[in-house]
């Protein structure tokens, strides 16, 4: 019980792999020591327990896009500090340093097993993948480009939710992204939402939940309220798998849970349904 709690906790706080040295890594799920090479080759999924560790946006793009086909768009859209919020400027610099990215979302076009798509991927290392105005704008622009070009769009979420440091403006990104999603919906442009660990709060309660197909990675933390809030409010005791991909599947909120090594193939099968025939 205690062990499970620790595993969960470390996952929530975004602790990456405890690197023993370059050759070894410790699994966040089963705590086993693994060969880094095996671990990388297995797409950062533990070969022993199947725990899916977080991917960076670049790694996920590499996983999904056909080699050398990804062309980034809107990389110049970055956060401002509209509220002059305490420590935000520092957090943005740290986010850039941690992720090597200008913003918490990378978007562009590519082919996926030969099918041209728009692809947007969040990166947890940039302020927990949180959605401020810039992330909202990048999601909106990616969707608009999909609409304009009538290309299917795949968005991989990986986010703690709306970005507190931009206050109400972050909250409004929920409405903004859903507004463009409404246009996709009406125009019949396919939108596939991929929920990875974690997809929470303001992101789950907006664009991430309105895909035509909602895919999740095994074990991903997916939910509305942070665990602490949810547990304080409990009258009903949460089940052991509370707010996991499997819990959301069981409750009808996710279409399909797909192991990482099958993700690209499954997305291809789904995309083919929309674009083929």
């Amino acid at each position, binding site marked *: 019980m205690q062990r499970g709690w620790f595993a969960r906790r470390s996952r929530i706080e975004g602790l990456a792999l405890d690197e023993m040295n370059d050759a070894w890594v410790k699994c966040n799920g089963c705590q086993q020591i693994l060969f880094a090479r095996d671990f990388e080759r297995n797409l950062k999924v533990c070969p022993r327990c199947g725990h899916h560790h977080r991917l960076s946006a670049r790694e996920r793009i590499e996983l999904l896009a056909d080699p050398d086909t990804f062309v980034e768009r809107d990389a110049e859209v970055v956060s401002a500090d509209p509220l002059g919020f305490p420590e935000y400027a520092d957090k943005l610099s740290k986010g850039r340093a941690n992720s090597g990215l*200008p913003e918490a979302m990378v978007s562009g076009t590519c082919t996926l097993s030969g099918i041209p798509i728009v692809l947007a991927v969040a990166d947890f290392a940039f302020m927990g993948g949180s959605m401020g105005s810039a992330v909202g704008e990048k999601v909106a622009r990616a969707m608009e480009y999909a609409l304009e070009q009538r290309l299917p769009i795949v968005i991989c979420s990986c986010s703690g939710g709306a970005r507190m440091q931009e206050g109400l403006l972050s909250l409004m990104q929920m409405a903004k992204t859903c507004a463009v999603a409404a246009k996709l919906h009406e125009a019949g442009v396919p939108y596939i939402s991929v929920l990875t660990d974690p997809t929470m709060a303001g992101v789950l309660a907006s664009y991430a939940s309105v895909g035509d197909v909602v895919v999740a990675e095994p074990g991903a933390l997916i939910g509305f309220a942070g665990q602490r809030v949810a547990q304080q409010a409990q009258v009903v005791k949460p089940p052991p798998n509370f707010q996991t991909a499997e819990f959301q599947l069981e409750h009808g909120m996710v279409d399909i849970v797909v192991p990482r090594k099958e993700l690209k193939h499954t997305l291809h099968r789904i995309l083919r349904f929309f674009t083929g025939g």
Partner: protein
Amino acid sequence: MRTILDFEKPIAELDANIEALKRITAEQGIDKSDEIAALERDRERLLREIFRNLTPWDRTLLARHPQRPYTLDYIRAIFDDFIELHGDRQFGDDGAIVGGMAWLNEKPVVVIGQQKGRDLKERQRRNFGMAKPEGYRKALRLMHLAEKFGRPVITFVDTPAADPGVESESRGISEAIARNLREMIMLRVPIVSVVIGEGGSGGALGIAVADRVLMQEHAIYSVIPPEGCAAILWRDPKRAPEAAEALKLTAHDALRFGVVDEVLEEPLGGAHRDPLAAAQTVKEALLRHLPPLQKLSVSKLRESRYERYRNLGMWQIATE
């Protein structure tokens, strides 16, 4: 029991003195009218003074004031012949969101709002105004009813947050809110939202995507409660007043960000000191904002609502 906020205490003391003098006048027949008039002038001056210098945290407390008028108070004061309609037709009826048919002067409208409770029992029944998925789905059902019969929608926003519990998670609280955001953008009839108390994050936004968003002077609208923000930032919920400052959650901030179209002035001392006057201001604003929206074609209406939300946010273009 009346609740008196700390900064309201000097007013309450004057009120007590005025009351006492009035009692003396009534019981002993001694004319205290000069003294009463003087105290009333003091009271007025003090109220103005206090309310000119409210901090964002003071406003947060006012927005949550237990005597503040709630959605049903506004509905009773503003509309005629309200018929409350219940249930989402899927799971149940959520007391935290009320809605139904009503008349605004001579025009039929659909009214929806979050409802807190007045006493402990009602608070529990209404879950402190924290709606569950069935609440958001009931709201959407009523919006679709409005759409079908060409009636405008008016929503009243007053919630600390959407319900965060296990039940709500199990029934898809995120999906329910997300769907409302998408559907409200596409709705073919005008929507006017009024933030009357707490605009608590996604839970508020779930019924607040509108052509016009109005906000009362002492209401708040925030991505996170100040207590939660302080806990994250400084690991100390007691620093909520500082967080309230940082979050820019007042009506005038929301106006500056373009989130809100108009700030509605409240009676001096806050809506709870004169609920009917507060309701009258809201009613006048509704009567001003609705007719021009009703004149727009459906496509123009939807396009301008889309543009309104599409353009929200402040980001920058990296120079290098």
